[in-house]
């Protein structure tokens, strides 16, 4: 059912490396309301560990993480 989630913002993190993807996701999540969902696209495999760790420590929900060709897609819901 997560495919039907409406994302309210999309962030392009392609070509960026840590900590910048985290900085940008952290900024973007503050721009949406609690309960809303954003998606991010990244190319650096470092995000595979970083985004889930950030979601856990910041108290937000990692709804989905998938790979589309060489791009990683993350769907994050603001919880706090």
């Amino acid at each position, binding site marked *: 059912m997560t495919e039907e989630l409406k994302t309210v913002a999309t962030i392009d993190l392609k070509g960026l*490396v*840590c*900590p*910048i993807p*985290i*900085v*940008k996701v*952290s*900024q973007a999540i503050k721009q949406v309301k609690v309960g809303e969902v954003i998606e991010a696209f990244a190319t*650096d*495999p*470092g*995000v*595979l*560990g*970083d985004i*889930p*760790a*950030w979601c*856990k*420590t*910041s108290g937000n929900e990692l709804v989905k993480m998938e790979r589309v060709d060489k791009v990683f897609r993350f769907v994050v819901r603001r919880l706090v």
Partner: protein
Amino acid sequence: MARGPSASEGSKMTTELATKELEKKYNKLVGTAASNMCAHCGWCMDSCHVYLANHDPEVTPVAKAERIRRVYKKNHDWLSKIFPFWTGAKKLTDEELQKWVELAYRDCTLCERCVVNCPMGVETPQLIAAARSALTSVGKAPEILTQLADMAISREENAEIYRDFFLEQIKEIEKQLQAHLGTTDASIPIDKEGARILYVPLSGAHTILPEAIIFNVARESWTLSMFEASNYGVFLGDTAKAKRIAERIINEAKRLKVKEVVLTECGHAYTTMRWEAPKWFGGPLPFRVRSILEVLDEYVRDGRLKFDPSKNSEPVTYHDSCNLGRKGGLLEEPRRVLRAIAQDFREMTPNRLQSLCCGGGAGLVAIAEWSEARIKAGKPKADQIRQTGAKIVVTSCDNCRHQITELNEHYNLGIKVTSLCELTVQALVLPDGAMASTNSK
């Protein structure tokens, strides 16, 4: 019914807590910097890139130090205890604490250029670091730095979950390694007990793939750390968190019985593990700690790698990271490597101990809300780079790399920013035929 603290009570509690933390940080170095040793001569002014970019007297090292010094004086200077109005000594207030946020986290990158130019040797960054600790203790540190520090701890606490992500990441990079070297023998060993080197990268592939290529070609006995080198606990002045983050790597190195821990091209990661960690853990660590710069330099001097410098024919300059150069003493190592791998290496002026900070250090590059001030503070570095006429800027610190990349975009420098390992790989002469790697998972 229990009553919560009023606004004024809350404010008093905050300042008391922050003052207590300042006192905890009071040691010989901080005490000297907080004493009357500063002659207020102003020599530090032109050492500070923030002042050079802004020409605001409030951001000179002496002015920044004085704000913290007067709080310390209140408790430690006998004259200030009796006649605080004479010496300017003051108790910490909530308003002052708020001002410290920008002073400590935005207007000082702890680069220590003021220290090397101070005729009295006043260690202003020690005071700034103490202020950072005080701010962290009362929850006033920038949120993103706290999150990045907590992320590092979370990765270890949830190692089983993150291990899968990590292995997936490494599998991707290993495929690229094998494609680059043209052999499936090339590998990225993980958890290899008894390896000579435990290499600690950052979380990005850019600090894993070039080093993996180099280690495989050099036939090094190595293993890749599960953890990333960066330590945001240091930027926060939060020793407990910083220790916890460093301890992950120390435990891993002990478990794998490696001879040395080699840190990736990351300034604060190197100084933390090399100089701070032994202090935190009560003595020398049971393994050698080096930067990848030292290992590369060793390979060059031993003739272990062959290079074709014509592959790097464009003019190259080197930005000394404050942590690696001024604080870490790694000044000649990267230069020896650069002379071996590039045809036209040219220096920035000034360089080495007098190198200007890029403006993004000590965590500032991660604090998005201050990016305008950060780019402005990087103007002296941008000017310096432009004057070299270089087309490639090498820096061995990821903080610096992010900042110089942004300076390039903002000030139209027309450069490419890269790391020493990446540039090394570009000039690396690969052995003929398939490689027989000594590493096996």
